[in-house]
């Protein structure tokens, strides 16, 4: 029995030292790994998959501009043959899709047919999803804020891939007709286009609560977008 205790204790000690070493290395490398991951799924993106070589999946993340053209493409081709199929994940191949609204016009890679076809198929899927869904769902954010008399105002902001506002619509039906609903009019909302927050836009004289609420909701949406 005593022997087992020694065995157990010694193994535990060895494991403890190893774990501490691992924790130290992890603390050192984790921030770098996280920073490198930067170009992953962010706002304004759709991720789609398609089967590639030997049926192994390829995953593609497409970043869209508000007008539906492709801003950027990244592809996870780790399941494909190294040195051959992973050419479908290289910038030289993926850059060809920028500015397009589908994968049309881009040829498969000679010698990496299955892998590059899969990337093309996934990009087309993403484009279809974008078109039918009215945009990349994470580039359209709806936020609410309390307006006049505490009644809620709901604002929907559509973002471009670079984080600037493409469009704003507001539901101000709970606000005073003829007064507060000015905050839902195009004249007011157009001011936000191209901005990354509601800064620099003044409240509407005489409709302070309502317009403040819209401004607050827009700021919330912007914060949520950049937090994604």
């Amino acid at each position, binding site marked *: 029995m005593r022997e087992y205790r020694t*065995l157990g204790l010694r*193994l535990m000690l*060895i494991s403890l030292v190893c774990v501490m070493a*691992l924790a130290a*290395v*992890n603390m050192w*490398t984790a921030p770098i790994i996280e920073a490198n991951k930067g170009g992953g799924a962010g706002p304004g993106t759709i991720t789609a998959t398609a089967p590639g070589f030997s049926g192994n999946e390829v995953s593609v993340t497409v970043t869209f501009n508000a007008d539906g053209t492709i801003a950027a493409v990244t592809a996870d081709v*780790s399941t494909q*043959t190294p040195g051959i199929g992973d050419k479908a994940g290289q910038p030289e191949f993926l850059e060809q899709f920028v500015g397009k609204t589908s994968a049309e016009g881009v040829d498969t890679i000679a010698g990496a047919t299955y892998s590059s076809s899969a990337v093309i198929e996934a990009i087309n899927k993403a484009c279809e999803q974008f078109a039918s869904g009215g945009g990349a769902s994470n580039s359209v954010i709806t936020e609410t804020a309390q307006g006049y008399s505490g009644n809620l105002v709901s604002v929907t902001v559509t973002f471009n891939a670079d984080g600037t506002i493409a469009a704003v619509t507001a539901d101000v039906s709970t606000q005073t007709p003829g007064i507060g609903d000015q905050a839902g009019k195009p004249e007011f909302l157009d001011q936000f286009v191209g901005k990354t927050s509601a800064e620099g836009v003044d409240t509407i004289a005489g409709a302070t609560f309502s317009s403040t609420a819209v401004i607050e909701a827009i700021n919330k949406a912007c914060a949520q977008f950049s937090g994604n």
Partner: protein
Amino acid sequence: MHGIIAENPTFRLVLGTCPTLATTISLINGFSMGIATMFVLVGSNVVISLLKNFIPEKVRIPAYIVVIATFVSIVQMVMQAFFLDLYNALGVFIPLIVVNCIILARAEAFAGKPENNVLASAVDGLGMGIGFTIALSLMGAFREIVGSGTLLGSPILGEGFAANAFKLFATPAGGFFTFGLFLALFNLVFDKIDSKRKARKEGV
């Protein structure tokens, strides 16, 4: 340092065959895998040699594995942080270094033995690691040139050859063929050396 040629782990001891076949499709992949494994080899040999009196005989295998796995995890994290392209290229074979026979075999047969001190164990790990890296690089270069027409990514035999290369060698089957070829080559050379030695002994 016998591990470099005479006791080359891949072609003489025939250890660690799995990563040899899987990661040698290109020169850079094979080379990187070799270096990563070498690092683990030296590290684990040193630590195990240091701890050989502390590790109880009955649990030496679990203890060795814990040490080896720790080094592999460190290598994995460092690669993911600083060599992301290689990390993605080698994929699942990095964690599989843990079960690479070479490492466990040297730990058991060399580093764990009382007559081998820490320095000798480190040198042994280094020699085996270099031999492994050379083996993987040779196979990687061969399979890349013949199978994809490129070397380190550049089509050295012309674009035409690159498009129509012997793709077979880039597949797992080709890996086996290449391995067999190199094994035959090494055997041929060593047979000649052996027979010359015998002739010399008998001559004297």
